[in-house]
C-alpha cells in the first residue's frame, strides 16, 4: 500500500529533512558494511575491504545530498497535492453548507456584492477626482496650480483665486525658479461650421508651453510651438482631442492639415492629442487652440487687461527647488506690475496648489459628495460583512457538537479555521465577481450621476485593485473573527455533553450585538437620506424667478460672423417670429443680459438721495427686455405692470425694478411712479418706475444673496450688447422641442454659427446634483441596509423562539397567557431595536455635523428627520417581530415538552 496514502489517511506529519538524511546515511552505512563483509569473505584484509567498498560506492556526501534533494522535491509535490486536496475538500464542504440554506446564502452574498460594488464605484470616482493626477501628465508631483491674489472690488482687499489674465501670466513666466509656466482657459462651447451645417464643440485655449509642461506627447502630428502662440495674434492652428478625432474626423491620419471653421474663423489641424488627455479638467476637450489664436483675443487689449479673469496658470517646479523661495519670487513678480493688488494687500502671496483641483483650495462639491458616498458604501459593506459573520456563526453553533467530535478525534483547530476561512472566502469571491459584473453594467449610470460631463476612466486602476483586495481581505478577516473564536473556544467535553437546547447565551449575545450594530448603521444612513431628501426638496422648491423646467435659452454668436447691429436686430426679430410658431412653444422673448449666465452692471440714481445701499453681490445690474419677457420666463409682477407694446423707443422712459430694490431702497413706500436716473449723463431724462418684479436668480446657484436688478424696455435700450432669446414651452422641455427650436434658428441665415439652445433645467441641474446624489444614494443604501437588518432581526427572533421552545412550553403549561409569551419576544425585539436606534441616532447626530455644509436649509439635527427615522425603525422592527412572537404564543406545551 502506498506510503503517502497511509500518511494522508492518518494525517501523519511529513518527514523533516534531517529524518530523511538520517535514513539515507543509515542505508548507505549498511551498504558499505555488506560490501566490506563480501570483500572480506573474498579474502581481502578488513581495512582494505572497507576502503574498496567505500571507493566503489562513490562520494558518500554527494550521494546523500543528491538523494535528499530529490526526496525533498518529491515531498513538496506530495504536500502541494495534499494542500490542494484539502483545499478542494474545504471548498466542497463550503458549497455544501451554502446549498443547505440557498436563499439566505444568496441574500447575504448579494448584499455583500452590493457593498463591494458600491465601494468599487465610489472609490473609482474618488480615485479619479482626488487621488490620481489627470491622465497623460508625467511627473505630476512637480506640477502646481497657481492660486493668485486678485483685487476684490467689494472688500477692497485681495482674494486668492485660481483664475487670472494674460498680463499676470506674462509676469509669472519671468519667474526663474519655475522650470516651466503654462496657462489655459476654461473649456468653452464653440460653434463649428456655419448655418444648418453648424455644430457645437468644446474648445480650450492653452499656451504652447502647456503640453510640454505636462509632458504629453501628440498621438499624431505635433502640438503648436511658442512661435505659433506669440502675442498679439498667434497662428490659426488647432490640436484636436483624441475622442473628437475618432468621433468626428473618422480617426484618419488625413485629418492633419484639414481646416476647422470655429466661431467663424479657420484653423488648420496640426496634431491629435493622446487618448484620455483633457488637460487638468475632467471635461473632454474637442479642440485645443493657442492662447493667442482665439478670435476674442483680437477684440480687446487682452494682453494688458488685468480686470478679466479667464486663465488658469500651472507651473512645473525645477528639481530640488525650495518651495518657499518659489513662492517669494512668484509673489514679487505678481505684485510688481499689478498696482491694484499691491496697494490693496502688499503682503499678498501666490499659493502653490496640487495639480488635482479637487484637493483644493476651495470646495469641490463632487469630491466632497463622492467621499461621503465612499463612507456610506463602506458602512453598507460593514453591514453586509456583519451578515456573513452571522451566517458563519450560526453554522459554527449548529456544528458545535460536530466540531467537538472532530477535535476529540485529533483534527487540528487550524484545520477547522481553514474551513471557516474558505467558507468566508467563497462567499466573498462570488460577491466580488458579482460586484465587478454589476459595476460594469451600471458604470453608465454611476458616470452620469457622479461626473456627468467628465470622462471617468473605468479601466481598473492599480489603486482600485489594491483597494478591492484590501476590502475583500478585511471582509474575510472581520467576518471570520467571531466564528473563529467560537470554533477555537469549543470546550470538547462540555460541548459533547450539552444538548442542542442549552446553547449558551453568549452566542446569542454576539448575534444581538451584530444586530444592534447593523440597526445603528442603517439608522445612520436613513438619517442622512432624510437630511438630503429634505435639502433636495428645499432646493427644488426654491423660486428662481424662472420656470426652469419649461424655459429655454437660445443664443447665437452673431458678432463672430461679423454681423452689424442692424442685421443682428433683424435676425432676432425674425427669430422671435419663427420660433413662436414652433410646436409646443408658448412664447418667445428677447433680452440683452441672460439670467444666470451674463449680467451687465448699470447705474441707478434716485434723485434726492446720496446713494443706494451697497450689496455684497455688487450691481445694480441692468437688462433690456421685451414686453413678453417676464411672462415668458415666469417671473411674477408684484406691483404695477410689466412692459407693453406701448413702451417704444419714442414713448416715456420706463423702468421695472426687482423686489430686493423695492424693499431696500423704498422700505416703507411704494416705488411705483418714482422717477430714477439710469444713465450718468444729465441730458437723458429720468425713467419712471412702472412695476416691481420678483428677484430673478443672477448666478447658477440655488441660494444667493439679494441682488439689485432693474429692467428697461428692449426698445429703449441704449448701448451695446447682443441679444439672447428666451422661449417658454407649453410643458417640460424635451429634446425634440429643443432640436426644432435650434433648426428653426439655423434656417434663418445660411452663415449663422451653431445656435446654443439649452433648458434652464439643464443649466441649474449641476447645482441640484449634490443633493440629488446624496438623496438617492443615501436612500438606496439606507433602505438596503435597513432591509438587511430587518432580515437579521427576523432570523435572530426565529432562532430564539426555536431555542426556547422547551422553556416556552413549560411557561405555557404553568398557565402563562399567550399575550405574555408574545410580549417576551416583542420585548426582546424592541430592546434590540431601541439600543440600535439610540446608538444610530447618536452617531448620526455626531456625524451629521460634518454633513452640514452639504445641506440646504436643514439643520443637521432636524428633529423631523430623526423622529421619522426612529418611528419607521421601531415600526418595522415590531412588524418583523410579530410572526416569531405569534409562534412563541402558539407553542403547545405537550409537544414542546415531548420533543426533548
Amino acid at each position, binding site marked *: 500500500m502506498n506510503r503517502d496514502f497511509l500518511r494522508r489517511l492518518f494525517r501523519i506529519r511529513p518527514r523533516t529533512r534531517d529524518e530523511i538524511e538520517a535514513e539515507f546515511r543509515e542505508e548507505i552505512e549498511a551498504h558499505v558494511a*555488506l*560490501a566490506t563483509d*563480501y570483500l572480506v569473505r573474498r579474502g581481502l584484509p578488513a581495512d582494505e575491504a572497507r576502503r574498496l567498498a567505500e571507493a*566503489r*560506492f562513490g562520494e558518500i556526501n554527494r550521494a546523500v545530498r*543528491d538523494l535528499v534533494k530529490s526526496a525533498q522535491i518529491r515531498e513538496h509535490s506530495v504536500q502541494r497535492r495534499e494542500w490542494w486536496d484539502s483545499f478542494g475538500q474545504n471548498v466542497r464542504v463550503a458549497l455544501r453548507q451554502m446549498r443547505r440554506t440557498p436563499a439566505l446564502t444568496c441574500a447575504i452574498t448579494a448584499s455583500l456584492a452590493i457593498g463591494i460594488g458600491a465601494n468599487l464605484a465610489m472609490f473609482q470616482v474618488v480615485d479619479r477626482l482626488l487621488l490620481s493626477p489627470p491622465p497623460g501628465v508625467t511627473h505630476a508631483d512637480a506640477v502646481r496650480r497657481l492660486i493668485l491674489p486678485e483685487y476684490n472690488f467689494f472688500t477692497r482687499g485681495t482674494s486668492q483665486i485660481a483664475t487670472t489674465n494674460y498680463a499676470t501670466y506674462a509676469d509669472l513666466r519671468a519667474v526663474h525658479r519655475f522650470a516651466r509656466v503654462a496657462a489655459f482657459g476654461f473649456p468653452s462651447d464653440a460653434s463649428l461650421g456655419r448655418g444648418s451645417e453648424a455644430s457645437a464643440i468644446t474648445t480650450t485655449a492653452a499656451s504652447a508651453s502647456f503640453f510640454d509642461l505636462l509632458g504629453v506627447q501628440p498621438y499624431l502630428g505635433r502640438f503648436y510651438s511658442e512661435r505659433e502662440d506669440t502675442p498679439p495674434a498667434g497662428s490659426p492652428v488647432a490640436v484636436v482631442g483624441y475622442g473628437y478625432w475618432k468621433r468626428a474626423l473618422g480617426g484618419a491620419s488625413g485629418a492633419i492639415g484639414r481646416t476647422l471653421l470655429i466661431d467663424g474663423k479657420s484653423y488648420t489641424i496640426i496634431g491629435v492629442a493622446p487618448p484620455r488627455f483633457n488637460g487638468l479638467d475632467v471635461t473632454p476637450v474637442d479642440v485645443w487652440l493657442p492662447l493667442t489664436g482665439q478670435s476674442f483675443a483680437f477684440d480687446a487689449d487682452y494682453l494688458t487687461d488685468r480686470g478679466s479673469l479667464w486663465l488658469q496658470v500651472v507651473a512645473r517646479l525645477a528639481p530640488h527647488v525650495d518651495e518657499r523661495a518659489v513662492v517669494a519670487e512668484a509673489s514679487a513678480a505678481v505684485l510688481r506690475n499689478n498696482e491694484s493688488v499691491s496697494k490693496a494687500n502688499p503682503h499678498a502671496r501666490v499659493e502653490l496648489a496640487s495639480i488635482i483641483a479637487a484637493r483644493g483650495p476651495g470646495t469641490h462639491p463632487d469630491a466632497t459628495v463622492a467621499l461621503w458616498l465612499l463612507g456610506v458604501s463602506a458602512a453598507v459593506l460593514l453591514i453586509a460583512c456583519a451578515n456573513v459573520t452571522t451566517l458563519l456563526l450560526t453554522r459554527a453553533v449548529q456544528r458545535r457538537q460536530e466540531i467537538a467530535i472532530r477535535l476529540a478525534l485529533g483534527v487540528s483547530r487550524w484545520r477547522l479555521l481553514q474551513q471557516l476561512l474558505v467558507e468566508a472566502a467563497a462567499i466573498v469571491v462570488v460577491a466580488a465577481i458579482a460586484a465587478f459584473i454589476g459595476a460594469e453594467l451600471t458604470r453608465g449610470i454611476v458616470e452620469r450621476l457622479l461626473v456627468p460631463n467628465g470622462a471617468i476612466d473605468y479601466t481598473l486602476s492599480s489603486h482600485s485593485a489594491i483597494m478591492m483586495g484590501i476590502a475583500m481581505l478585511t471582509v474575510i478577516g472581520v467576518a471570520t473573527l467571531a466564528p473563529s473564536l467560537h470554533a477555537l473556544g469549543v470546550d470538547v467535553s462540555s460541548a459533547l455533553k450539552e444538548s442542542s437546547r442549552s446553547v449558551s447565551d453568549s452566542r446569542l449575545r454576539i448575534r444581538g450585538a451584530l444586530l444592534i450594530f447593523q440597526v445603528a448603521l442603517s439608522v445612520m444612513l436613513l438619517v442622512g437620506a432624510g437630511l438630503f431628501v429634505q435639502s433636495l426638496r428645499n432646493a427644488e422648491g426654491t423660486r428662481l424667478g424662472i420656470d426652469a423646467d419649461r424655459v429655454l435659452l437660445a443664443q447665437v454668436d452673431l458678432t463672430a460672423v461679423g454681423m452689424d447691429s442692424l442685421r443682428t436686430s433683424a435676425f432676432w426679430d425674425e427669430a422671435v417670429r419663427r420660433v413662436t410658431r414652433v410646436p409646443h412653444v408658448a412664447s418667445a422673448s428677447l433680452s440683452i443680459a441672460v439670467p444666470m449666465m451674463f449680467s451687465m452692471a448699470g447705474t441707478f440714481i434716485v434723485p434726492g438721495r446720496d446713494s443706494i445701499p451697497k450689496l455684497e453681490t455688487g450691481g445694480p445690474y441692468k437688462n433690456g427686455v421685451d414686453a413678453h419677457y417676464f411672462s415668458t420666463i415666469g417671473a411674477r409682477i408684484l406691483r404695477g405692470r410689466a412692459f407693453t407694446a406701448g413702451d417704444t423707443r419714442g414713448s416715456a422712459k420706463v423702468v421695472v425694478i426687482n423686489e430686493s430694490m423695492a424693499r431696500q431702497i423704498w422700505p416703507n413706500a411704494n416705488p411705483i411712479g418714482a422717477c430714477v436716473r439710469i444713465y450718468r449723463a444729465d441730458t437723458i431724462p429720468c425713467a419712471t418706475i412702472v412695476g416691481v418684479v420678483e428677484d430673478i436668480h443672477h448666478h447658477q446657484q440655488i441660494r444667493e444673496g439679494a441682488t439689485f436688478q432693474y429692467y428697461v424696455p428692449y426698445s429703449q435700450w441704449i448701448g451695446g450688447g447682443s441679444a439672447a432669446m428666451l422661449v417658454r414651452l407649453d410643458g417640460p422641455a424635451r429634446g425634440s422641442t429643443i432640436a426644432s427650436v435650434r433648426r428653426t434658428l439655423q434656417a434663418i441665415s445660411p452663415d449663422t454659427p451653431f445656435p446654443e439652445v439649452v433648458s434652464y433645467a439643464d443649466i441649474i441641474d449641476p447645482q441640484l446634483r449634490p443633493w440629488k446624489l446624496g438623496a438617492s444614494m443615501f436612500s438606496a443604501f439606507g433602505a438596503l441596509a435597513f432591509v438587511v437588518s430587518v432580515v437579521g432581526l427576523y432570523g435572530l427572533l426565529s432562532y430564539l423562539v426555536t431555542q426556547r421552545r422547551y422553556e416556552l412550553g413549560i411557561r405555557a403549561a404553568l398557565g402563562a397567557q399567550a399575550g405574555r409569551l408574545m410580549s417576551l419576544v416583542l420585548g426582546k425585539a424592541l430592546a434590540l431595536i431601541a439600543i440600535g436606534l439610540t446608538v444610530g441616532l447618536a452617531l448620526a447626530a455626531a456625524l451629521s455635523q460634518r454633513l452640514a455644509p452639504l445641506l440646504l436649509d436643514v439643520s443637521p439635527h432636524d428633529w423631523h428627520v430623526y423622529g421619522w427615522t426612529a418611528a419607521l425603525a421601531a415600526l418595522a422592527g415590531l412588524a418583523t417581530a410579530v410572526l416569531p412572537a405569534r409562534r412563541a404564543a402558539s407553542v403547545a406545551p405537550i409537544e414542546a415538552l415531548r420533543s426533548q
Partner: protein
Amino acid sequence: MTYGGRQTGSEALPLLKGTVDLLVLKALTLGPMHGFGIALWLEEHSSGTLNMDDSATYQVLHRLESKDLVSAEWGVTENNRKARYYRLTAAGRKHLRAETEMWLRYTRSVTSILTLDPRAARA
C-alpha cells in the same frame, strides 16, 4: 573479477539513460533484495562492463520507489546485518514487462539495420 576495482578504458560501457532502471527492476524479479545485492547482481551479470558507482543504484532505487514501482522496508540479512530490502510492486512488474518489450523491439530494429550487408542494402 566480479566485484572490486573499477574498469577503465574501452572495456567500460557508457550507460544509456533509463536502462539502469530497467536492469534494477529485472534484478528484483528474483525476489526482495537490498541495494548491495542489486549492485552485486548487476556487476556479475554485466561482467563488470557497467561503469557505475554503487551510489547510482540508490538514486535509481529511490526514484523507482517514488514512482511506486518498488517498495522498501528495513530487514536483516542472513549475516545479521540491517539492510533496506526492496521488492517489486505490481506496477513495477507491469512497467518492467512493457519496457523490456519496447527495449527488445528497439534493439532488434537498430541491430538489424546496423548489421546490414552494405552490398545487399544497395540491391
